[in-house]
């Protein structure tokens, strides 16, 4: 009963932390999928009097440029060639400005787009900038907020869990202190002496991992029940079960062993 209680003191914070990590990871995936979907739902067309370089704009704006593509004049002229004379086309060809399509490395908000527009317009050779975009702003901002909130919650829970887990490990060391000192008198290494504490940590990590795996599998099977079907048309609510379980297994054992060895190092420095 006592050892079950002490294992639970390790399992509960670890499971809670893994759950938060899973929700954080799930949110990130949904947001990234959505970002990818809307990535091409905007277009920035720059009209310039003379050729412009990617680098000359890159340093002016906050979001990095993915590409700056010169739109071929032939295509523009071919659209209007039937309605005007050949002489006019020749004249137009000489006087036609340079058209560029600008694409950014991430989806910009409306205010960011306006900011980019204003900054580029300060260049002397820029005649005009046209922005064509569908309005994803509200959903995008909401998802970004959700992503940030989940990140803060995860970090908070991670720190809190590590503190509780390390305290539990210290309790285990205290409970085993007589045994540890006897082993120490016989020249046992710190790893050998702490074998039972390491085993406790291993069992607790395994239990946490099994609990969280069961929860994640249940979550995956009930995604359509948890989230309304209409949501699927806006964002892709899905994740790779295998990949998530591997990540959770790694995190469960990694956090446990890092904490155990941290406490072990503290114990070694104190006792050696």
């Amino acid at each position, binding site marked *: 009963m006592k050892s079950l209680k002490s294992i639970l003191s390790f399992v509960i914070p670890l499971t809670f932390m893994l759950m938060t990590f899973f929700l954080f990871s799930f949110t990130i995936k949904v947001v990234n999928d959505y970002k990818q979907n809307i990535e091409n739902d905007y277009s920035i067309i720059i009209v310039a009097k003379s050729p412009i370089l990617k680098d000359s704009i890159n340093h002016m704006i906050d979001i990095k440029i993915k590409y700056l593509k010169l739109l071929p004049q032939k295509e523009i002229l071919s659209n209007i060639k039937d309605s005007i004379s050949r002489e006019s086309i020749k004249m137009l060809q000489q006087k036609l400005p340079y058209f560029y399509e600008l694409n950014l490395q991430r989806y910009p908000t409306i205010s960011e787009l306006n900011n980019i527009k204003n900054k580029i317009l300060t260049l002397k050779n820029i005649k005009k900038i046209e922005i064509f975009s569908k309005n994803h702003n509200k959903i995008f901002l909401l998802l970004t907020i959700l992503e940030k909130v989940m990140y803060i919650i995860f970090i908070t829970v991670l720190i809190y869990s590590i503190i509780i887990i390390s305290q539990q490990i210290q309790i285990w060391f205290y409970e085993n202190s007589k*045994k540890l000192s006897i082993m120490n*008198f*016989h020249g046992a290494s710190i790893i050998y002496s702490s074998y039972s504490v390491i085993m406790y940590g291993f069992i607790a990590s395994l239990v946490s991992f099994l609990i969280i795996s069961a929860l994640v599998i249940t979550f995956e099977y009930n995604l359509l029940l948890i989230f309304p079907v209409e949501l699927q048309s806006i964002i892709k609510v899905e994740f790779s079960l295998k990949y998530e379980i591997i990540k959770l297994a790694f995190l469960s054992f990694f956090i446990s062993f890092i904490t155990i060895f941290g406490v072990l190092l503290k114990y070694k420095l104190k006792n050696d």
Partner: protein
Amino acid sequence: MIKAKNIYLSYDKDKFIIKKCSLEIKDKEFIFIGGNSGSGKSTFIKSLYGEIPLKYGELTIDGYSMKNILSSNLKKIRRNIGIIFQDYKLINEWTVEENIMLPLKINGYSNYVSKKQALNLLSHVKLIHHKESKPNQLSGGEQQRVAVARALAHNPKLIIADEPTGNLDDYSSEVVWNLLKGANEQLGITIVVVTHRVPKNFGINFRQLCIEDSMIYEVS
């Protein structure tokens, strides 16, 4: 085996328990250390296995200097020492057999060899019927016999015993003394024993030291 030159031992800065003591204990010797309560007998033997750090002087155990000794070297020394404590220091969560196997496992012996040696020693100390018992189920005398068996298990070069018969009846005391004599005579193990009373008619050669006024004297 043990060389001490002008050693000083203390628990705090101001008061030295052992002052400017020198002595030499050769291989295969049997040493009794006597003295009044609080004279520093236990402090001295604790310094032999590094529980009390050396303040000043030079102390060498089996070729290793105990001055600012590295943790790894201290572990090596301890693996070659068998320690018998007055309060036995047995692990109550483990069986008697597992307790005896401890130094063997620490020294890297296989489970099979460790178990065989533990059973052999349990027969010697006449506790084979208690191999599955937990130490706290045994009497004081029986626990001390287990502690002696554990100290002998890995055939150490040196056995240090702090009042090994202090809490024992005559029968258990005799068993313990016979085991230590056997270890010294037959296995050539150096033995250092702190005791209030040296047994009469001990039957083997021994040297007797006495700690008084923070100094170690040879008793002629």
